[in-house]
């Protein structure tokens, strides 16, 4: 694909018309002989929630660790809040709140003590944050006694405590139950509404769709595409499927459906061909629904399968692999989706 977030190249001028909180050009990082991040460009505009997605081992966590100044890049130029994470890490880190993957607190540290330990003079009210994330009752509990979800919520409290200008969240809702996930999402949206920029590393595509204005897809240490979730779905998984039963379809109805804009295929299956399946571009859903209503044929069992960001990611990754393997891009296919 070769599409780049921000589109810049090392050594070229960075477009500054939009204020960037994070600008990365030509980032490269290897562990021994294994290249983990390879000539990566990335922009995170101020005030946005940007998602970093991709398969395991794509280099997402290493990228955000370099952005935070926790790892030293082998090559590349990074600017975070106008500071260099390598040479100005001490000034940068207090401005960045982070929820790191695979990290912990001392086992015997109590929740309230953790808040006290991590707070700086510009900190928000720790009690309010604990209340917001449902941890007030656990104030005196030691870290080792917290459940996985409670630990994640505590990390989020600590990430938000010092009014950061940029928040980096790596696997934000790992281990959270659905209600806690929604609670955390609401907090991230609220944070963003208050003007904080968020860089979200996630495997949860529904999370990226729910929160991110823009997602960046990584594979093998490179950005292979970027854009709004809907745009990625449009580009890489635009096929929708409608299914309904019509035991005795009126003459001409299915022909009209076949002629609809975006329809690729109409098939009949099941007993006596009563099950109708329509495949095509996502916009066919509205057109097909309108036709069925106009023909006064409204099946009770009509179901719609819409492609999701997950399908787009899978399509994109498989297409990218195919292009690597065969030198051409595979057509997108419906690889799951949602009703």
């Amino acid at each position, binding site marked *: 694909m070769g599409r780049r977030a921000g589109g810049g190249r090392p050594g070229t001028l960075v477009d500054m018309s939009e204020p960037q909180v994070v600008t990365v050009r030509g980032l490269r990082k290897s562990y021994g002989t294994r290249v983990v991040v390879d000539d990566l460009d990335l922009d995170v505009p101020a005030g946005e929630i940007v998602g970093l997605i991709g398969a395991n081992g794509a280099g997402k966590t290493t990228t955000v660790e370099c952005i*935070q100044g*926790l790892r030293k890049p082998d090559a590349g130029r990074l600017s975070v809040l106008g500071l260099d994470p390598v040479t100005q890490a*001490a000034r940068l*880190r*207090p401005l*960045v709140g*982070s929820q*790191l993957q*695979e*990290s*912990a*607190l*001392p086992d*015997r*540290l109590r929740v309230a*003590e953790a808040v*006290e*330990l*991590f707070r*700086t003079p510009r900190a928000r009210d720790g009690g309010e944050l604990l209340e917001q994330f449902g941890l007030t009752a656990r104030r005196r509990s*030691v870290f080792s006694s917290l459940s996985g979800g409670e630990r994640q919520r505590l990390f989020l409290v*600590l990430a938000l405590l010092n009014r950061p200008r940029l928040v980096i969240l790596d696997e934000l809702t790992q281990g959270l139950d659905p209600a806690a996930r929604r609670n955390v999402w609401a907090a991230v949206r609220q944070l963003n509404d208050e003007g904080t920029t968020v860089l979200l590393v996630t495997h949860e595509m529904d999370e990226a769709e729910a929160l991110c204005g823009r997602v960046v897809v990584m594979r093998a240490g490179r950005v292979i595409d970027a854009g709004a979730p809907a745009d990625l779905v449009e580009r890489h998984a635009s096929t929708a499927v409608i299914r309904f039963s019509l035991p005795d379809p009126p003459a001409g109805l299915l022909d009209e459906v076949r002629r609809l804009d975006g329809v690729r295929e109409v098939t009949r299956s099941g007993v006596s061909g009563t099950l109708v399946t329509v495949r095509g571009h996502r916009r066919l859903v509205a057109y097909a629904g309108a036709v069925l209503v106009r023909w006064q044929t409204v099946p009770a069992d009509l179901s719609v399968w819409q492609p999701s960001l997950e399908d787009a990611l899978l399509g994109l990754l498989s297409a990218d692999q195919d292009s690597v393997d065969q030198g051409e891009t595979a057509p997108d296919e419906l690889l799951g989706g949602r009703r």
Partner: protein
Amino acid sequence: MSTVGRLVRAELRLMTRDPLVLTFVFAFPIVTMLIIGGAFGTKPDPAFENINPSHWYVASYLTVVIAATGLVMLPVHLASYRERGVLRRFAAAGFPRWSFALAQLVVGLLTNLVACALLLAVAAPVYGVPAVHDGWRVAVAVPLGAVAFVSLGVLLGSLLPSARSAQAVGLLLFFPSFLLGAGGPPPRVMGSVVKQVAGPLPLTLLTNAVRAPWLGLGPATGSLIGVVVLTVAATALAARRAAL
């Protein structure tokens, strides 16, 4: 409160909740001092340089506390933090890397101070605390040794990959040092080979630098110089590892 101040306060709290610290640094030296201090009676004995054996061990056991802190408590603590990503979290939150090492130095020294005071407080009514003959040498050797062993602890904790390996290596270093250099038999009853092995051990040098001037057995200048060299080397290496 400063970053180091907040870290020191948190680490001190955690230390009081850590069973390894409570047993190994506080309880173990006291219990073994009580046992071995009573094993040889209280009559001056030629094997103990004509010193009351109980007093010999009371004067020796301050360095056991120091060694337990530096060879076991700190390496396990630090390696566990690194293994579990605690140090990474501190770093990401803006704690300078050196601040944690400095906090460990302060905590290690305070632990030594409290544990040594407790040891003497327990020894006093049981065996009595022997009079200090050469106070300034003892006053120099004890804090120097404490800094040396805390630095060794920070160094080991920064090198060993996991809490388990730190515990294994720490115990392997501690017990031979303890038996040969502080809490075991006096050098006079050791065979020549064992004496040769024991002589250059850091804990032997420190114990000798504390015990000899304390009990009036000589200035032990050679041992004190050895402790100074150890302190400088261990602190420099630890500072380099911790980017101080």
